[in-house]
């Protein structure tokens, strides 16, 4: 698919916003990585290097369309319009976090934005997407859902159950496979006999595509087409986005299992740099605007850290709240 041209439906401002969003995610994750020692949780998974997928894909759906996310979910959260401050506060485990300090990094969610949650169980998002898509279909809403998952999750049994059922019922789901070549330390090539995961789509009776996940416009255009197909009742599509995780599996992973050469090679394919170059070439921005955007982004991140530090810790006396909608009672009659 040619992605040389910018999509015509976007205004210059909207095109620049895509850049801003990717940069926001990048800066957010860099800050989290820098502060990892302070945050203390060893289970925080940065999205650095993969930003074009979340931002490109979410740009192709409407506000009231849904997404499910993964353990590596901050990027999805921000791309779907989730609030920066409450994301940061959640990772700090504070009361003003999106999940009031109950969920943390692996469970960030903003249901008001139809971001249905990061998930700590690899491969658990796609089965949930089935029901959301079915609800949309039964109520004739025309809403679609993007379900993000990794190359590791691609080998999870429930993902396969989900792809089969989605195709059988022609559900409006886009299976967004983020192939960053590794599941934690395991190269997917060691545990998967095929090179392109998109091949699997055919076996379930849906269309499968493998694309450059570091090209935001290619991601956008591919998802857009799949979304239009799904909205028309055509059913699901599998989109494999090839990409790379720049950092360790988590903010605390020493990442000794991947070569420096490999990492450097992928850094040269930076999705944000590539898009920036294009914006400059298209004369949509110049160096000065870029610099302003970078500065403003860092201010936003600083503010979110300040907000999070100021936010109180959750009241320990609320630890038992909200297990059920109403506290369960031991009736007696």
């Amino acid at each position, binding site marked *: 698919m040619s992605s040389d041209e910018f999509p015509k439906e976007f205004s210059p401002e909207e095109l620049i916003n895509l850049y801003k969003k990717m940069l926001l995610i990048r800066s957010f994750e860099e800050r989290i990585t820098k502060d990892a020692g302070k945050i203390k949780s060893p289970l925080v998974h940065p999205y650095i290097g993969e930003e074009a997928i979340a931002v490109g894909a979410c740009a192709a759906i409407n506000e009231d369309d849904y997404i499910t996310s993964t353990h590596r979910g901050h990027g999805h959260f921000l791309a779907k319009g989730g609030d920066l401050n409450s994301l940061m506060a959640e990772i700090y485990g504070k009361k003003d976090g999106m999940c009031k300090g109950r969920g943390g990094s692996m469970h960030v969610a903003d249901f008001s934005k139809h971001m249905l949650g990061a998930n700590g169980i690899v491969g*658990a998002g796609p089965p949930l997407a089935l029901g959301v898509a079915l609800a949309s279909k039964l109520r004739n809403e025309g809403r679609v859902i993007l379900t993000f998952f990794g190359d590791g999750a691609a080998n999870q*049994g429930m993902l396969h159950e989900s792809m089969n059922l989605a195709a059988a019922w022609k559900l409006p789901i886009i299976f967004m496979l983020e192939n960053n070549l590794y599941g934690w330390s395991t190269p997917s090539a060691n545990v998967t006999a095929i090179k392109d995961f998109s091949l699997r789509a055919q076996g379930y009776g849906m269309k499968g595509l493998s694309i450059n996940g570091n090209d935001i416009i290619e991601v956008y255009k591919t998802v857009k087409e799949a979304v239009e197909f799904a909205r028309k009742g055509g059913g699901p599509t599998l989109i494999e986005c090839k990409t790379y995780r720049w950092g360790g599996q988590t903010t605390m992973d020493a990442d000794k299992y991947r070569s420096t050469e490999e990492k450097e090679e992928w850094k040269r394919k930076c999705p944000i740099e590539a898009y920036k170059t294009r914006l400059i070439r298209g004369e949509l921005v110049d160096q000065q605007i870029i610099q302003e955007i970078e500065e403003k982004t860092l201010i936003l991140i600083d503010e979110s850290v300040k907000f999070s530090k100021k936010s109180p810790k959750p009241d320990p006396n609320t630890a038992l709240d909200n*297990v059920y909608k109403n506290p*369960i009672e031991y*009736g*007696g009659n």
Partner: protein
Amino acid sequence: MEVIKLSGETKTMSGADAIRLAIEEEMERDESVFILGEDIGAYGGPFFVTKGLLEKFGADRVRETPISENAILGCAVGAAIAGMRPIAEIMFADFLTVCMEMIVNQAAKARYMYGAQISVPLTIRTPFGTGIMGAAQHSQSFESWFMHVPGLKVVLPSEPADFKGLLKTAIRDDDPVIFFENKQCYFRSGEVPLDKNFTIPFGQARKFTEGDDVTIVATGAMVQESINAANKLKEENIHCEVIDPRTLVPMDKKSILNSIEKTGKLLIVDEGCKTCSVSAEIAAFVAEEGFQYLKKNIIRLNTPDVPIPYSQSLEKQIVPNAKSIQDNVKKLI
């Protein structure tokens, strides 16, 4: 707690028919209710509980699925998050092992870990227990596993009227409910109220017989065995109070403790194997909260810790029955 007398117009029907009536009434009442599972359509399910629902409500709302239990429950949880009220059928409780993920890590946790942003109004129905020569993989009683999962409600009625009233409550409940249907209770008949507004609140035990001598707490098929035992023992002037908790979470501790305050003696009869069973939980809270009432040691009469054998002569040997209940009551006298 009084022995319940049903009011209003009633009809004699089997447990299976009472369940179907509850589903039918709730599907008529609320558009967002639908049912999904394996072979539940024209065939009506292995115990014919859903027979006729497809003809009445159509294939959109009576959805036959592939044999993909994680997809079934994932779909149900996702639909519940999106505002539907799904009823998912798992063909045999034994198959819950392949979809624990969606129950334990998703349905039960979503409200709490996402900071109370959402509810999961889901009902999972599943037949369990011995009595059909089902052998080791089609006869198990797993209910105690789910009592160990905060966020779930666990319902296990034994009488047709209770099936109807409690299933309607389950469907209307905003939290995930797992509804265990004892296979033998499917076939037994009883009076069932025809009132469409007949519901039974969770957390209220039911007393079947009055007595001052021994409290028998029993669930599922063990309730009828206990009633039969109590009727026999009456001839010997031994008076037992047979109590069915009906919901295991929430558990009506108060009614059980009140009865023990009167009798001072407790026999718990449970079809599940003994270690970490429902009987273990009941014995534990009685020891903790009602020790002062006990005049004798508590007796737990369970199926022993053994896979369920196929041959009837073996199965009958291990599952508690009216005779073994009588013998154990006498140990307390």
